[in-house]
Structures are given as C-alpha cells and as structure tokens.
C-alpha cells in the first residue's frame, strides 16, 4: 500500500515509518506545520521538522511538509482560547487529532492517492469477526493513546494505521536505537505544542483575552477567597484560590462564568455519579441503554465502570461517585473488558438530573 505517515519528529512516528517500510509498504513521510507563533515545545518547531526530515532521509523515504497553520488556528487554537473564556477546560491535542490529523491530513492523503494514513500513536486498529473496525488500546498499557484518537469512525479507522501500537515504548526506543535514528532518545512530548514553557498557559491566554477577577465562594455563597483570572480555574483545582491555610481540603466544585464566581467545597461536594456528554460519536453502532461500559476521562486516567443511562443526550452513570469531570474534557467509553473504544464525546457543563 501507499502510506502517508505523519512524522512529528518524535521517536514513535520515526519508528512507525520504519515499521511500515518493513511491512513492504510504499512510504512517504509528512510533517504538518501547525503553529506559526512562538513556542519552544511544539511538535512543529523547525528543529522537530529537521528531526523528521533527517529520519526520513535515514530511512530513505521522501519527506513533505504541509502547512496547515490556518486550519490549526481555526480548529484548535481559537477554540482553545474561547473555551477558557466560556469556563470550559479544553483538550487541544484531541481537537488537533479530530480536525488536523484525521480530517485535514487524511483528506489530503486521499486526494493525493494514498491508501492509508499512519501515525505514531500507541493504539491499534483491529477487525472483529463481522469485519467491523475496532480501535483497540495500545499494547503498552502505560503509553496507550486510544483515548486521544477516540473520534475515529469506521471510515477513518479503515484508512488509519498505527504501526507502533503493538509495541511497548521500550521496544520502540530499542528499534530506534538499532536503526541509529537520531530521535531514539528524544524525550516524549508532554505539553501543549503551541504554548511555550517559559510563558505557559497564563501568558498565552493573557496575550489574547482579558482575564476577569472572580470571587471564590462556598456553596452557601460565603466569600472565601479571590482569583485574578477566572479563565484559568478548573474544576477540581485546589491551589491558587487565595484561601487561608489550614482547615479541610477545598476543591473547585463549580466555575460560574456568567457571575464570575468560583464555587469551592469539600471532596464530597465534588463527587458525582452522573455525567452528561455532548458531541458524541461512536466507532460503530451506538451501544444500548443499560449497557455496561468503562469510562476514561483523561489521557492516562483510570477506566471506571459505568452504565449507559440515556443515549441522546448521552448520560453515563458511574457505579461509584467520581470527582466531577471538568466540562470540555473528552469522555471515552470502552467495552467492559477494557479492550476497545466504543465511542465518546465531550463532558457537558450541566449535570444530569438525579445526581
């Protein structure tokens, strides 16, 4: 097959390209240029593009650079900023996967006549007995990234390859070392690519929006502290709320954006059993009401047992109360054996009834 492999300049996508060659595919590497602004961590900085290109040269494959910076700004950066204004905690990496890697890039690949797009994600695509595509967790439990690519539907799954999904991270690095790839010991990227380490989220947002001061209040409306930037407060947060020391642990249990108030409470007040999810999509057919699922709400969070209480809109009911999921976070449902993704969506701000 003719495969376009997205190369970020990291070790996983470097080895992914090599794996594809070993499997006998015709491989072309591409690095997406996504962010034109300043950043020192980005997966699209010039030095990362250099790494990707040099690895491609080592492997003897062509390397392209596609400039998708307009789309990245439109689908990832601008919504990221707006989400903070709206009191939502966004996940820009997932939006990048949704709109850039598995939409813009895969569409470009189709137009150019490629048979598949590959990335270095630790996830696997398999097919069940009926031929239905499944997004399965990566072989390396600690590095599994099926959560961040949960949005793939049947058409995208059929067109997508994850050549390192069956390997552990250690095996990936071993292969990179054996091949003499310059990215073999490169650290994993951790941060949001368009935000610089020096300035951080606060500086990035501060250059783009005006922060609102907000009162920190208890559930009874009693003033307890204050914050300078309502937009930087997230559900579950404990620090930076201007609270006096001592006393029981206090958490942000709600961000009241219209009234510029941060509501705090003890851990119990943070707990919920119900979770409303919007923008839902399923990998295949929707599961049924009453179906038992495992739910994951962060990239490396635990998968928690829950029941599908309602489908449209989607409401999940956890077996045991969980700390409230910040609106904007992706909520991914796995099958009850925790092997593959059923689908997912975005946590809603509203709480489902019968909390």
């Amino acid at each position, binding site marked *: 097959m003719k495969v376009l492999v997205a190369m970020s300049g990291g070790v996983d996508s470097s080895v992914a390209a090599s794996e594809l060659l070993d499997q006998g595919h015709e491989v072309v590497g591409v*690095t997406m*240029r996504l962010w034109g602004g300043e950043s020192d961590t980005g997966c*699209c900085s*010039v030095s990362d*593009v250099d790494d990707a*290109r040099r690895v491609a040269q080592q492997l003897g494959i062509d390397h*392209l*650079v*596609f*400039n998708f*910076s*307009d789309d990245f700004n439109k689908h990832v950066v601008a919504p990221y900023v707006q989400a903070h204004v709206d009191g939502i905690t966004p996940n820009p990496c997932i939006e990048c996967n949704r709109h850039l890697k598995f939409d813009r890039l895969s*569409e*470009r690949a*189709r*137009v*150019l*006549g490629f048979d598949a797009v590959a990335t270095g994600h630790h996830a696997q695509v398999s097919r069940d007995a009926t031929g239905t595509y499944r997004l399965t967790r990566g072989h390396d439990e600690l590095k599994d990234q099926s959560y961040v690519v949960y949005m793939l539907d049947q058409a995208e799954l059929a067109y997508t390859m994850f050549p390192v999904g069956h390997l552990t991270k250690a095996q990936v690095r071993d292969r990179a070392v054996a091949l003499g790839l310059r990215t073999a010991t490169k650290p994993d990227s951790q941060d949001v690519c368009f935000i610089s380490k020096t300035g951080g989220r606060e500086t990035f947002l501060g250059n783009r929006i005006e922060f609102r001061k907000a009162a920190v209040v208890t559930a009874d409306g009693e003033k307890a502290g204050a914050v300078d930037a309502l937009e930087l407060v997230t559900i579950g947060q404990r620090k930076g709320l201007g609270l006096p020391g001592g006393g029981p642990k206090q958490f942000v249990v709600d961000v009241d954006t219209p009234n510029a108030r941060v509501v705090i409470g003890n851990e119990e007040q943070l707990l919920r059993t119900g979770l409303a999810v919007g923008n839902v999509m399923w990998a295949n057919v929707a599961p049924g009401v009453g179906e038992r699922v495992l739910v994951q709400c962060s990239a490396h969070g635990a998968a928690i047992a829950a029941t599908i209480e309602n489908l449209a809109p989607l409401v999940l009911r956890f077996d045991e109360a969980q700390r409230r999921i910040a609106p904007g976070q992706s909520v991914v449902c796995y099958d009850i054996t925790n092997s593959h993704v059923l689908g997912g969506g975005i946590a809603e701000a509203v709480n489902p009834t019968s909390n």
Partner: protein
Amino acid sequence: MRQEAIDAMSPYMSGIYANPSGSHRFARLARKAIDEARDDVAEALGCKVGEVIFTSGGTEGDNAAIFGAARNRGGISICSAAEHHAVLHCVENLHGRVVSVDATGVIDIAELEAALQDPQIAGNVSVVSVMAVNNEVGSISPLRQVAKVVRAHAPNAVLHTDAVQAACWQDLREISKLVDVLSVSAHKFGGPKGMGITMQRLGLQIDPLIVGGGQERDRRSGTHNVAGIMATAAALRVTDQTRNEEVARVTKLRDALVDGVCSEIEDVLETVPRDKRVAGIAHMCIAGCESESVLYLLDEAMICASAASACASGAMEPSHVLTAMGVDKQHSMGALRMSLGHTTTESEIDRAVNAVVGVVRQLRRNKIKA
C-alpha cells in the same frame, strides 16, 4: 549552472587558489582574473567598473542597500508590498513604509508619490526600493516612472532595485541607468548559488553592511570568492550575449505552456497578463486545487515547480504577493509557478502541460470523492 560558469571557476579551485589581496605571484594572477571579471560585469550592467561589488547574493545586496542607506542617513525606508522578503523584511525591520501594488503586482505610482509628499516623511526618505521584476508572478515594474517620482519628490533618497528576476530577461543597462543601487543573484542566470552582484553608484553615501578587511573598496569586506566571481561573470556574459534570442524562444515556450494548461482545464487564472511580465515565469492560479497537493503530484511526475516562498520548516507560506495583488483565496491557494530558462526545451513543455493537466484532473476528481 551554465557550463561556461563551471569552466570559468575550475582553475581557481585548484591551480590558482590564492587570495587576490595578497602580493605574491599567484595572488596577482587571482587579482587579474577578478579585475577582468569585473570589467565584463560592468559591461553587462552598463556601469563603471568601480561601481561593481561582488556579494554573496541578492539577499545581501538588498540588505546592504536598505540598511546601508538607513544607517548612513537615518530617515524612512519605502518599498512595495510585493517585494521579495529580502527587501520587505528590511523595510519592516526599520519600521518603514510599504506601498500597495495593483492587481498585476506592480507598485501603485500614485500612492508612492503621495507617500513621498507626505509631510510626515517628505525630505526624510533614506531609500526607496522597488523590484525590477516580481519574483513570484513575473510582473515588470514601471521603474522609469518610479525613478521620476522619487527624483522629483525625494531627490536625496537612494533608489534601489532588486533586479534578481530581471537579469535573464531584461537588459540590465536599461535598469541600472535609472537607479542608484541594483542587486542581482548569480544563480538566477546560471551562475553559482551564494554569489551576487551589486551595482552601486560611485560616491553614493551608504554604510557597508559587512566591514573587515576593506575589500571591494571598503564597501563589502571579506576575502574574495575568486572561483565564484569568475563563474558569475562568465554566466552573466553568456546571459547578456544570448538574451534577445532567449527571450524570444522562452516567451514562445511559456505561452505554449500556459495555453496548453488553460485550454485543457477550466478555472485557471493567468495571474499577470503576458505583456506585463517577463518570459521566464509562468504563474497560474488553479481554482479548487491546493498548491501543496499540486506540487507533490507534479514532483511524482518529475516536474519540479513552486508555489510561493517556503519558510524555515520547508512549509509553503501563503503568498504575500498574491495577497497584495488582491487575488481571492479560492485562486491564491492554488498558486503554481513554473520557471523556464536557457535549458528548457519544447518537449519539456509538452511533458509539463500533460503533467499539470493530469494532476489537476486527478485532484479535482479525488476531491469530489474524498
């Protein structure tokens, strides 16, 4: 590179490797060589021998003219919005003024005249830089009119032209007589990369960009690249001698290329009218096709083309020239620039037409499916 250029540089990379600033016999041989090269260049540029400065290329020539004038005189720098980044970024760096271009990419003379008469900057203009030929779309600037308004309203300003794209297609004598400083790049006329020539009027007050050993009459320090100078002069000599026939020959090929593409596929914009641009550039905007996709598929078909300038990562940047010209996004996203030169043949044009037509059809077909 032109064979004449390769032949001209070879002896100076082995036998006569001396530094022409030295005093021994080999140095004298090297000095004689670059003196003669300078004579040839002056002839082709229509300037005095002492006005020729060898540089590392067009970017250096542009930077030296603009920063050199600004540093020497202070005051405001002015350029057109469609200049090469080697000019545009200098003027932006100096917080200068950028004058609009018209729909063909040439400077708006009325706006330039108004800017020069603006009470805020009148009498305080250090340099006006207007390209002879646009590097992306090939449009020819009305330099005679530019010179007229600059001399009338800013007689003390340095008038510079980036003539990098003109060297192959226009008599540089006709351009050099209009301006104070002119810069070209050798690799645009079959010389080596990393070499250029600047023509700078004698006595013109400009600070040097590079100081050091005082070569090139203190205007550009640094040990002479003797082999590069020899190759540059040789390439320019051939270019100058064969220019008229080449312009006629390449114009026909270019027209055949554009006609061939436009007759086979719909909604292709010929970016600049043919009578307003040089022979060697075929620039088209293909609606509904993205440049990056077109270039990739053309490369697969062994056709090497371009769209706009590339950034440090190698990604295509949206063209500031097309934006300045007011080309709508639907067309500018499908910019395709094909360059022709002294090696281009009729059969290559046939192959290019077939490839472009095939690629555009494939992209439009697949886009509907995707």
